[in-house]
């Protein structure tokens, strides 16, 4: 170490570093065969090693608990859309990926839309989206969430404009998307506190 620092070389990151000495090779080294055999033994030991491959379509790596994937627009208990087209998500979005057209709820549509105003059109450009989750934080109605689903690959850019047909979850119980991993008790508790700037 002292020698190294005196020569003003870089600090070694590990204690495994070796100073290279260019000395004449001994006969044992010149034959090469011992080195070749030891090298081949090393590769052979890898032959029986456990392979770390994950066989993708059959086998999937587990996502982290807070994985942020494709969005979902939630419905409430009776199946009405929670989104009121307030536009906070679009404002919060750093990538400007969200656009929407707001509309007024007509009489008789109470079962479809939760409040008087709703999103006639809601689009997320999945190529622009950076999956930061700010839309989810901004939403005052618990309407938009990021899920652990991956955005599917497409052949053309146009297919990445996800409209309400893809984003809104189904009415039936089995078609509902589970977001309990992101909407935890702590998150719900935090959102109740109106004194936080965020929740106003």
């Amino acid at each position, binding site marked *: 170490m002292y020698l190294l620092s005196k020569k003003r070389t870089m600090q070694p990151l590990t204690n495994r570093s070796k100073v290279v000495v260019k000395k004449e090779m001994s006969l044992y080294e010149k034959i090469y065969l011992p080195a070749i055999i030891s090298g*081949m033994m090393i590769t052979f030991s*890898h*032959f029986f090693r456990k*392979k770390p491959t994950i066989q993708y379509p059959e086998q999937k790596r587990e996502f982290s608990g807070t994985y942020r994937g494709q969005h979902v627009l939630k419905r409430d208990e009776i199946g009405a859309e929670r989104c009121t087209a307030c536009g906070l998500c679009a404002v919060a979005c750093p990538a400007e990926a969200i656009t929407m057209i707001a509309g007024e709820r007509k009489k008789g549509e109470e079962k479809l839309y939760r409040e008087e105003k709703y999103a006639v059109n809601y689009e997320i450009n999945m190529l622009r989206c950076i999956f930061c989750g700010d839309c989810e934080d901004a939403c005052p109605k618990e309407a938009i969430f990021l899920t652990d689903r991956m955005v599917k690959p497409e052949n053309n850019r146009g297919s990445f404009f996800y409209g309400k047909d893809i984003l809104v979850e189904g009415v039936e119980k089995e078609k509902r998307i589970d977001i309990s991993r992101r909407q935890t008790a702590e998150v719900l508790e935090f959102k109740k506190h109106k004194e936080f700037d965020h929740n106003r």
Partner: protein
Amino acid sequence: MALETYIIYKLILVVLVFAITMVIAMYSTYAERKVAGFLQDRLGPNRAGPFGILQPVADAVKLFMKEETIPSVSNKTLFIIGPALSLLTACMTGVVIPWGTSLSFFGENFSLQIADVNIGILYLFGVVSIGVYGIMIGGWASNNKYSLLGAIRASSQMISYEVAMGLSIIALIMTTGTLSVGEIAAQQHGWHWNILIQPLGALIFIVCAFAETNRAPFDLPECEQELVGGYHTEYSSMKMGFYLFAEYINMFISATVISTFYFGGYNMPFIGRFVHDPNWLALCGVAFLFAKIFFGIFFFMWVRWTLPRFRYDQLMNLGWKVLIPLSILNIVLTGAWMMRHEILNVFIK
């Protein structure tokens, strides 16, 4: 033996050897990728069929379906002859290999060697030498500098290593006293394997076999990092498949020749104690020969995925300055050992 039965039996043997060669070459491509994968902590191809066993079929279909391009500036006749010659010479070598002793049916003796010519070794070397023309012609006819460089590298490498290979075989011929491959194999019954008599010669022969088959660490003719693929850069579709196929057949034949010359061929010690029926004994011999060949092929792949490629000057140094002097030394030592009584007599007198 009647002439008709003789012809039919030889034809069956030829077709069988050809088919086995092709199937083994086909599955060598699969084995290569699988071995490479396992040596590198991967799984290798495993999608086509169980364990990817249909991968060679898929590869063959792919190669046949690919568009075939012949460069407009190339010499078209030679461009087609190149891969054909490569594959032809690769397939021709199997003729003199003794695949087993002999089977007897209906009182007739059927040797498992297609042609036991008394100059089998010379035939082998002659055919292997022609093999370089396939590469040379293909590389030259492509009219591409990378192809030409690859072809020049291949030919100079193969010619250089053929010298050492031939010299190492001379020592073997001195001890065995025959040029017939069948006789060399028959002499190695029990533990009389030639590698125990000729260890240095065997080592030189194996190293040269790697160079002759253009495999790592001597795969300079097709090193893709420098030459874009070497002599088959311009080839596409099944013509390229022919070159790749020829390479794998060469590897198979090399493993066969190494096992026959130095590792006892179809002989296995102690097998005579367990099996007594001569027909079963012959079949066991075939099985042992193939076990040795498969290990040889695995060894070729094992080396390929372990050792880095030589630099060109290192390759030439190894060939001319190390292997050729060593093989000459081997000849001298072998001769001295064979004449030891006479030499001793001279000193005693």
